[in-house]
């Protein structure tokens, strides 16, 4: 087993791991925030603005339309954006690390 912090190659350094995790976690948290804000806001709006949320839109109430129908595509968009960026991030990391090795 390798000794901590004494490894010569860049992949096994603490700095590389920290950067790797920070990049991925930042992206994950940004995407999660969009989702959590919506999850917190909808019950709160129902609580504070019941009349506004009960207005009719195409026969649905506004809040029913949001929760029963629109919420699904909203989450698909977040997940699509996350996958694209996350895969791009991984490719960049792999490339950077391998460049570092050949130097």
């Amino acid at each position: 087993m390798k000794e901590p912090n004494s490894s010569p190659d860049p992949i096994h350094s603490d700095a590389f791991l920290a950067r790797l995790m920070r990049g991925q976690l930042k992206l994950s948290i940004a995407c999660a925030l969009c989702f959590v804000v919506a999850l917190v806001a909808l019950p709160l709006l129902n609580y504070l603005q019941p009349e506004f949320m009960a207005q009719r839109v195409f026969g649905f109430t506004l809040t029913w339309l949001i929760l029963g129908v629109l919420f699904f595509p909203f989450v698909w968009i977040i997940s699509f954006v996350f996958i694209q960026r996350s895969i791009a991030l991984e490719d960049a990391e792999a490339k950077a690390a391998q460049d570092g090795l050949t130097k």
Partner: protein
Amino acid sequence: MHTLLAFLAAEPAAHGIDPWIVFFSLSTVAITVGMGFWSAGKSKSAGDFFVAGRSVSVGWNASAISGEYLSAASFMGVAGMVMATGYDALWYPVCYACGYLFLLLFIAGPLRRFGAYTIPDFAEGRYDSPLFRKIAVCFVLFIGFFYTMPQMKGAGTTLAYIFQGVDLRGGWLEFLAPFANDKPQVGLNYAVGVAIVGAVITLNVSLGGMKGITLVQAFQYWLKVFAITVPIFVLASIVGHYQQHLAANKTAQETVATAPAGIERKALPAKAPQDEQWIAPFGKLTTKAVDASVKAAKTQEEKAALEANKKPYSLLYTYSLIIALVCGTAGLPHILVRFYTNPDGVAAKRTTMWVMILIGVFYVFPPVYGVIGRSLTPELYEAVGSKGTDKVVLELPTLLAGRDHPLLGSILSGITCAGAFAAFMSTFSGLLVSMSSALAHDIYGRILKPSSSPEQRLKAFKWSALIVGLTAIGLGTMVESLEINFMVGQAFAIAAASYFPLLFMSVWWRGMTMRGAATGMLVGGLSALTAISLTSVSDVAAANAKKLTEAAKLAEFWSEHPIAKWLGDAWVAHPLLRILCEQPAIWAVPLSITLMIVVSKMTAATIPADVRMKMLVLHAPEALGLKQEYIKEHEGLGGH
């Protein structure tokens, strides 16, 4: 073939059973079992059995995960709950689908890269601790059994529905009939349905293993989507659409309910919630506890004080439910094990996205059954147990028979029955595989007999499937009075307080120690489990007490169940306590995570020595080839 056709053409009343429903349901069972047998010949090694050789493509895997995930709760329970309680129940389908986002963002990719068969494998590998495996494996079984109970209720409800016209009284099969006041009735006993379906699936799983299941699950996803969409489109084109039926329910701002032209609405029975409560947030589902206390309150001041708390408590209930479902999805053992069948971490992420789309499309439809069911089959509000709103998906298509489409009504009801079969069969199979794997792979293979050969482990898997299947049947017969969807929600709450914190923290925090992880998971998970069990025990007892009409018998019943009586009284006295026990996620998840952090800080000296390498394996892209390096390093050391 001729006899089959003759049977199909016969009048339903002649047999007491609708031949189309039997035909579609039996076909579903036959195809499922047939595919299991067919692929049994193809799965040879233990690896095939446990994780399908890790070679399943994204499309197949996404369909299979979706097929496994869409359970009786999704297919029957969501519709039943929307009909019974209205808007609040929509949180279930939305969070069932969207909870995958947390799984995708934080867990799916790293977990796949780490490459272990099961969650207990991960627990052991991440902390180099065989002891932790033993602790972690318990929760596969806890969560699994909580999740199998509603599937069994789905099975019992569906079979009781299919055979509702059968008259077994007086014959030698009389013991299979349902009993009321000790007298046999027309129809089939709920428990018999549970036993039949449980036995068929158990047999299927012990023969086919997981490779068979991947194929069957993928097929069943598409069957379920077909079975939920086609009948509702046909039905809506005849009786009116989703939004039209919703528009027929008046909101608190509207003075009269004005049904759009051509929309029929039957009168609601007294037990049904009123329009204003049903269509608006914070309805019956979330205010039940406070309502019970208001009913029992003696003075006007007490009543007023409780009424003032009603809405804030409802908001609390809603948030707790959301936390349970969203975090719970990311901690379901039978779903997580499927991520190991992806070839790499990128495929695991892609699969998760496709799962969200596949199940999201599905989840738009069950509430439609609930909404139309409220207009057209309100009589279900009055029934209880397996005859209540949980069967609205099966019942609704038969309405077409009364509208000059008798054949169409039968066929569509047959299709929804087939979908229900697919739903509880696929989820139960998946649970059975992961629970039997836990028993065979973890408890037998690692703890009881580490020296066992692969053949012995395969044999152990089959025996485990049998044991788990029988236990699930036994538990399933006891929960007829609980709502399907509600029970699944509780399994999610336990997963949210145990596996979710474990996975989330182990993947993202280097400072975690085995003791921290174990303490947090055990305390969080067990306290959620206890709180939920308390509410379920008292609810089942209360439902049984309701069946007794004589005062003397009722008094005797409660004296025999002092704990349930005491709990029932405690809930009425403290509605907030009831809400926090029924939906424990809001305190159990933070409790679990806090304990993990505090205990890990206290035991920081025991952080695994090679934690940096483990974190690299979890997070570095596969292209760097760190995984192989890690395995070699461990083999070089003698490894584990």
